[in-house]
Every structure is written in structure tokens, then in C-alpha cells.
């Protein structure tokens, strides 16, 4: 049972899971960060309130977040094929993962930025800071620990989503757990893959919290 092939499969599974998770998180932030900033800035309490922009972004983010990931994965197949050329495999899974992660990340960025004390923003305005200065030198800097805590949550969630990649032949540990544990009744392989998933989440969580604590200057 635990022959070379199985072990190789599990190692490849770890690699695929990490690839999908990290690439999707990275791309998710590439789109989610501007989205979150736009949401925080255009809200009526933001530095450049704009009801129309806010409503549109708010509506789109909510719609995408309401669609279950498994369905999003299938609905997006034509879109995925248009982008990466095929609709199966780890790389193809990254497309729906990014689509699902972007509004989620945007919301977390928005809430992190809204935690920044309005008085500090006002102080920056009184010094003659414009909107871009406030975004890049006040909001994102003051909220950085909160943003990092959000990132560790995002990685965990995306890792969970990536387990569904098996549906489109995406591979990864979740795929192995379902194929062997569920379809073939090989509980031992399933348990090992689940334990590996738990370990991965723990590592991301620990590292993320460590970095965000290290960067937080609000401690004595």
C-alpha cells in the first residue's frame, strides 16, 4: 500500500496544493488589494466618497462571494480555457480560485483599512497630504498588521477551496483525499492527506501571525 508510487503521489499533491494556494493568493491580492482600497476610499466615510463606484464594486463583490466555489469552478470553465488554454490541471484551477479570492480579499482589505483611526487621516490631511499619499503612506502602513492577519485567513480559505480542484482534475492533496478516501475506501491515505492539509494550514497561520506581530509597533 505505502509503496513508492503512493508516496510520490502524495509529495506531488503537496507541491500542487502549494502551487495553487500560493499563486492564487498572490494573484488574488494583485486584484483584491486595489479592490479593497477602492471600496474603503469610495465609501461614504472614506477619503473620496463616491456612491456610484462604491455601489458597483460592492454589488459585484457580493455576487461573486454568494456563488459556491464548486459552481464557480464549473461556470468559469470557458473563461478558464480562454485564459490558460485548457480547463483542467493545477494551473487551470488557479483562474477560478483567483476569481473567488479577489472579492473575499477585497472585503478583508476594506475592513482593515476602515480600522485606521479617522483622526490620523485627518491629521495627514491637515499636513497637506493628498488621497494617494494617504492611501500609500497612512492607510496601508497603519493597517499593515491587520492586512497580514487577513492574508493568513485568506491563505487558509484558498487552501480549502483548492481541495475542490479535483473536480476538474486539478490535483493537490484534497483531490487525493477524495479519490482514495471517498471513492476507494482507502481511509489511511485520506487520513494522511488530511493531516498534511492541517499541517500546511498551521504553518501558514503561525508564520503569518509571527510576521504580523513582528511588524506591529503598537506593543510596548
Amino acid at each position, binding site marked *: 500500500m505505502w509503496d513508492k508510487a503512493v508516496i510520490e503521489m502524495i509529495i506531488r499533491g503537496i507541491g500542487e496544493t502549494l502551487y495553487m494556494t500560493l499563486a492564487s493568493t498572490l494573484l488574488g491580492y494583485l486584484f483584491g488589494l486595489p479592490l479593497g482600497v477602492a471600496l474603503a476610499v469610495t465609501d461614504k466615510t472614506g477619503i473620496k466618497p463616491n456612491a456610484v463606484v462604491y455601489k458597483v464594486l460592492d454589488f459585484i463583490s457580493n455576487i461573486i462571494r454568494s456563488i459556491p466555489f464548486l459552481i464557480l469552478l464549473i461556470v468559469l470553465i470557458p473563461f478558464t480555457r480562454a485564459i490558460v488554454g485548457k480547463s483542467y490541471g493545477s494551473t487551470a484551477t488557479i483562474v477560478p480560485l483567483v476569481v473567488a479570492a479577489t472579492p473575499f480579499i477585497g472585503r478583508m482589505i476594506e475592513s482593515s483599512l476602515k480600522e485606521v*483611526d479617522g*483622526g*490620523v487621516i*485627518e*491629521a*495627514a*490631511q*491637515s*499636513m*497637506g*497630504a*493628498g488621497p494617494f*499619499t494617504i492611501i500609500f*503612506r*497612512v492607510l496601508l*502602513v*497603519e493597517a*499593515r*498588521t491587520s492586512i497580514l492577519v487577513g492574508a493568513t485567513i485568506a491563505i487558509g480559505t484558498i487552501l480549502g477551496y483548492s481541495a475542490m480542484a479535483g473536480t476538474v482534475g486539478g490535483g493537490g492533496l484534497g483531490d487525493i483525499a477524495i479519490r482514495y478516501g471517498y471513492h476507494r475506501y482507502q481511509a489511511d491515505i485520506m487520513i494522511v492527506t488530511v493531516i498534511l492539509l492541517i499541517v500546511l494550514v498551521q504553518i501558514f497561520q503561525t508564520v503569518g501571525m509571527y510576521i504580523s506581530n513582528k*511588524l*506591529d*509597533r*503598537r*506593543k*510596548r
Partner: protein
Amino acid sequence: MITLNNVSKTYTTKDGEVHALRDVSLTIEKGDIFGIIGMSGAGKSTLVRCLNFLERPTSGAVLVDGKDLSLLGEKQLRAERRNIGMIFQHFNLLMQKNVTDNICFPLRIAGTSKAAARKRAEELLEIVGLTDKASAYPIQLSGGQKQRVAIARALATNPKILLCDEATSALDPQTTKAILALLKEINEKYGITIVIITHEMAVVREICNRVGIIGDGRLVEHGSVLDVFSHPQSQEAKELVLRTNNENPDLVETLETRNCVRIVFSENSSYEPVIANMVLRFGSPVNILKADTKNVSGIARGEMILGLPEDREIARGMIKYLKERNLAVEEVTGYVG
């Protein structure tokens, strides 16, 4: 230095319009320490924000150094704000940056080089007396130290005006005194015009030379601190002058029920034993409810609250007697509590 012409500010809320400021006209001269005092909700915070256009007035003009702020574009307005420093009740320091970087912040966003900004920060830390805290983070500082950093930061761009929004309201009395002394020193040394928003008469008395009193969005009274303290005209002013004694919050309530006057002695009226002579003259005793000497803009002023006899005739005679001796007399009865 700062001129307000018929400035009004109206907010539209769900429950209708709120008039935060109504037709305020005011001139603040260069080198003034101008106090703006009023109860909470009177509009003083809105007023100070109109001075650097953090709030845009609904109507009226704000002229700073001859420039009409409403005529400036976004960019010019931002540049102009570098001439107007501001400090706040809750300090509003960047919590993730250390003291030096906080002070450098306004310089860096104005395009000053890192080295030049650091040099200026060192000078400023010396002025506010925090050289040893250069690399500390705000969380490690006390309230008074945070406000010193905020003052240093506000002064970094060499402003001509410093706006203080309830800058001492979150501080204990001793720290308040120290911060006020620092502000006074800055005013005298560097000739910076200071505008102080407060709800405490003690702050105004301590360092301001001129004062404006705001009540319900209107500037109800303004003038030299000495005048307003000795001869308050408006209800709001009378109330604020009387409420100075924090340790005696019930005083106003007690006084309302009695026949009381508040008298203020100036330096030349202290030679004659006025009260004693008055009691002898009228053959009726008065009750001294409170007596105090206060430092008003650096000049000692005696303040006394007398309970006059029940007899209206005698009471009126006494008030006349006191006024004839050039004392400032205010009837306390009828103050709105």
C-alpha cells in the same frame, strides 16, 4: 493673519439641516494666541476646521494671510495647509511609525529629502524636550509626550499658524500646564499665531490674549481675555467665566437660587477695603461665597462671589456702591444652568 467673513456651515442630515456655524466674522491678528471657547456642540470644532478647510464653509470667506482659501485649487490648498499646523485632542500620531518618522512625515510628503527631514526632526525634538525619545513608538509615550510629538510634527513645515483642537482636553492638569507653557514659548520665540479651541476657561485664561465665545454656532462675544473675563456680556460668556471652578460644579446651581453678584477687582481697586466699608455703610452683612485670585493673561485678577441681603433695596444699593468703586459687577442670579 486670519479673517473670517460671514462664515456659515450647514450640514444636511436625515433629520434636516444642522447649522454648525452661523454667520461668523472674526479677525485673528499675527502673533495672537486666540482662544475659541464654547460648550460641546457649540460649533467650535467646525470653526477651527474651516480655518484650514478640512471643512469647507457653506458660505462666507476664510482669508489666511490675505489668501481666500475657497479660491484655491486642491493642490494649492494642500500647499497652503503646510503653512497651517494642527494638533488634536487625541494626538493622532501614526502608531506604526516612531517619533522621528512621525515628525518627518509632513516634510517627506512635502518632498523634503530624508536627511534634511531628520535634521529638522532633531531640532524639533530639542524644542519640545523629547530628544531621548527619538526612536520610541507612540505606544511607549505618555499623553503629554504624545502631544509634544504632535506639536513637533505640526511645526515641522515651519507654519505661520498653529491650530489646537482641544489639545489639552485629554491631559491631566499638570501636563496641561506644561503643554500650554510650551505653546506659549513657541508663540513668543517663533511668532507663530496660535488658535486654541477649548471648553475650559482656565486654558484661555492661562495663555490666550484674545478670545471668542461660540454659542449655538454663533460668535456671541469676542475681545481681549481681560475684558471678557472682567465684563462678560453674553449669557454664554458669563456662564463660562463662572464655571471655571471645576472643583465646584454645583456652585452655579446654588447661586441661581440666591441673590448673588460676581465682582472682579483690578489692580487699582484693591487698596480700599471695599467689602468691609460696604457692610459698614449699609449695616447689613454680605455672604462671601467664593474668593479667588486668578492669573488672566499674566495679570492677577481678584474674583469674588457675594451673596447679597434678601432686601432688594439694599442689594441694589450695594451693587451701585460697588460699581461706583470701579469694580466689575455681574449679577449671577438668573444664569442658565
